[in-house]
């Protein structure tokens, strides 16, 4: 009963049917308890509370211009959260996204400074990310090492390589045309933002409506049964980890463009930010449960909290404490909701 939460969340219409079944006696209350979007609604309420408060103490903070300017720090986390969410849905995890970013960034910079054209350097960065992810995927899907172990190892390894080949130096001096991708808006939004919106929309459709999405949930719940059903579990995992690496490669480009410097410490701690947002959004770390609306709410809430605190008090310690508190609240919330569901 509890574990169907995420699945039902995909098809709230389907769930209504059984709410109005023969047991609808006590009626509204019961239907309220089986409402599949509680987690998302509560995150939305928290977000509204936060923004209302922010608007009252610092009206400037809510200005569109300010928000778009600040969103620089949202998009790369958001972009990486999509493949991470799918990986976590299958019961896996990718800890290496941050160091994949750093390696991609360094490869990009070195390719460019060695005289390659800009486009080739960009391709090299994305290809590096893809290769990193593919390597993770090989170990997870074929050699069958636990993803936590695999990506913990590559977390260290990729950054080590990045530091080695860049000799620990920052590399800068990219053409203004390249920097523009992080500093100019298209229709009021950063190009990275548009990329995320498109990718999120596509992911949402895949998760809710395509066999691939259904298979992700099946793998997360019971990989053996998925394999027995002819679902290509190994290929799908290989694809997901590759996708995650590729997204990290792309995110690295945007990050380099923003600061005009490629350095091996780029993307440091990224994996934790991404995983926090995904888990905060209600995706079960054990796989099988979660949906994209939750992840987007989680991303927004964490990001707005972080930005508001740094805007208002400029205190990094406070940010960490509050984000930690929010995460615990979210987990308690999930436990409470699940208890409510089982109790009916």
């Amino acid at each position, binding site marked *: *009963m509890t*574990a*169907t939460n995420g*699945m*039902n969340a995909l*098809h709230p*219409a*389907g*769930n209504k*049917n*059984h709410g109005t*079944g*023969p*047991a609808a006696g006590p009626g509204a209350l019961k239907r309220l308890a089986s409402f599949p979007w509680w987690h998302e609604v509560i995150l939305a309420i928290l977000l509204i509370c936060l923004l209302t408060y922010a608007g009252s103490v610092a009206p400037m903070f809510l200005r569109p211009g300010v928000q778009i300017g600040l969103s620089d720090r949202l998009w790369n986390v958001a972009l990486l959260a999509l493949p991470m969410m799918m990986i976590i849905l299958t019961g896996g995890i990718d800890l290496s996204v941050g160091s994949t970013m750093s390696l991609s960034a360094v490869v990009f910079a070195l390719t460019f400074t060695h005289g390659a054209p800009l486009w080739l350097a960009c391709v090299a960065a994305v290809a590096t990310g893809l290769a990193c992810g593919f390597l993770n995927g090989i170990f997870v899907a074929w050699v069958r090492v636990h993803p936590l172990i695999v990506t913990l190892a590559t977390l260290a390894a990729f950054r080590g390589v990045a530091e080695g080949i860049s000799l620990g130096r920052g590399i800068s001096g990219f053409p203004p045309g390249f920097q523009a991708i992080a500093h100019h808006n298209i229709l009021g939004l950063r190009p990275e933002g548009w990329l995320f919106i498109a990718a999120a929309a596509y992911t949402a*459709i895949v998760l809710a*409506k*395509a*066999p691939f999405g*259904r*298979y992700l*949930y*099946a793998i997360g*719940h*019971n990989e*053996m*049964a*998925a*394999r*027995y*059903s*002819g*679902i*290509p579990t190994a290929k799908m995992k290989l694809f997901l980890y590759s996708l995650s690496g590729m997204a990290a490669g792309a995110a690295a480009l945007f990050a380099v463009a923003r600061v005009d410097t490629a350095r091996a410490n780029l993307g440091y701690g990224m994996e934790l930010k991404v995983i926090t947002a995904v888990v905060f959004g209600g995706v079960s770390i054990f796989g*099988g449960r979660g949906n994209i609306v939750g992840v987007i709410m989680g991303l927004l809430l964490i990001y707005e909290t972080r930005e508001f605190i740094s805007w208002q008090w400029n205190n990094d310690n406070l940010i960490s404490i509050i984000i930690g508190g929010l995460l615990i609240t979210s987990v308690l919330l999930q436990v409470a909701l699940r208890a409510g569901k089982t109790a009916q």
Partner: protein
Amino acid sequence: MTEITKDAPAGQPLIRLVGIAKSYGGVHALSGVNLDLFAGEIHSLCGENGAGKSTLIKTLGGSIKPDRGEIFINGRPTAFSGVRASEAAGIGVIHQELVAFPHLDIPDNIFMGREPRRLAGLYLDRRRMLRESAALLESLGEPLELRRSVGGMSVAQQQMVGIARALSQQCRVLIMDEPTASLSERETATLFRMVRQLRQRGVAILYVSHRMDEIFALSDRISVLRNGAMVGTFARADIDQPQLIRLMVGRELAQAEAPGRRHASTGPVLAVRGLTKAGFYEDISLTVGAGEIVGMAGLIGAGRSDVAKSIFGLIKPDSGDVEFMGAPLPHGSVRQAMRRGMALAPEDRQHAGLVLPMTVEQNLSMAALKSVSPWGITRKKKERALAARMVKDLSVKTAAVTLPARSLSGGNQQKLVLGKWLARTPKLLILDEPTRGVDVGAKAEIYQLIRRLAADGMAVLMISSDLPEVLSLSDRILVMRQGRISGELPAAGATQEDVLKMAMPDAPQVDPATNIITDSPGEEIV
């Protein structure tokens, strides 16, 4: 040992259930169930899957709170607040899924949660744990090596540990949920001896089983549940097997055991030649024709499931050929096998057959999702129609297709596994233990279904350890022994002895208590 048959036990029942009711959603799992358990009796609880046996057991075990009704222990009304409270009241449950901590050793498992301690509770009193464990197992007549991890022991030995744990809690009521489901006959005999011994000590035993012979061999009294209601409690002498089945099912069964139509094979659908995987099976050759049911008998561990998995592509064989629908099938590709029309309903439906937390509908469409997803988008309506059709065709009992598969009873879960594959209308259906843990009613329905499918021209390869089942359903019987095919018989005229002779390495022995022939409790799952 003197057998005490209690026609109408005198005195106060150890446990009395009065009017126990429990419902989930709108479905009544139990409605007004009464049950008396007396000290020193073996009381069998019978009923089809879904009749409410599990709910009743869980109620006694304290993990479910009934909506209504009362539990009296020694005449005093008691409400269990949880499993601990039930244990404290002297009720022990031995579940099908056996030990809780496979990586720990026997004393750890026996005393988990109640370990004796020393030095102000800071340290485990290992010595006392070992001593008491040894004494317990000794008293059961089964001295075991104490320090081995329990997961590596045979199923029977694990059950001994479970019984020892129950006894260490001074339990006066022992609930056994299908304890023989995966025991060999020798182990079953040991278990029976132990159960009778417990009865002599005055323990009340509530014994749940689907096996008629066991029920009649062991019980003093038999209670029958049907659709959540207690049909009645009978002394063993007052009831016979056909009557009991009638009471469980509530209708006359279509003669399940009668030999069906003997279909003549019209052409080979599957031809396997010289299939070998070192250490698993060797030189397997077999054919299955359209409309033919080929039974595969043998002991557990003979390699039958591995052969099936290899044909289906889940295991890659070392050598040999699989020819399917007139063309060779590449090894190790489930996708290819499925695309060409092969289906495998695995024996372990909970882990390999279904995704239990997902809905009935999603499980039914799992293998045929592409067919309800034109242009790569799953159409809700098509999917629901597919699920509704399978639910109707196989008469799956479920309140809604949006319920999780977990909420269904064993027999209905098995129907889901079949439905999931029939949704693809396969040309060859491989069934691995299609009726294991399935009650008589659902069994008969599954038999009829298999016959109907074969009559419609489907090729069926059926692995089963249930000899009467193999004999009555198959057109031909293949017997495997230690990884090889040891013989082939036409089903017409074959007897259990014939099959056993080929299956057993040594002199054949027919067990009167069970229909299941097993030798080693080893696992078939790789």
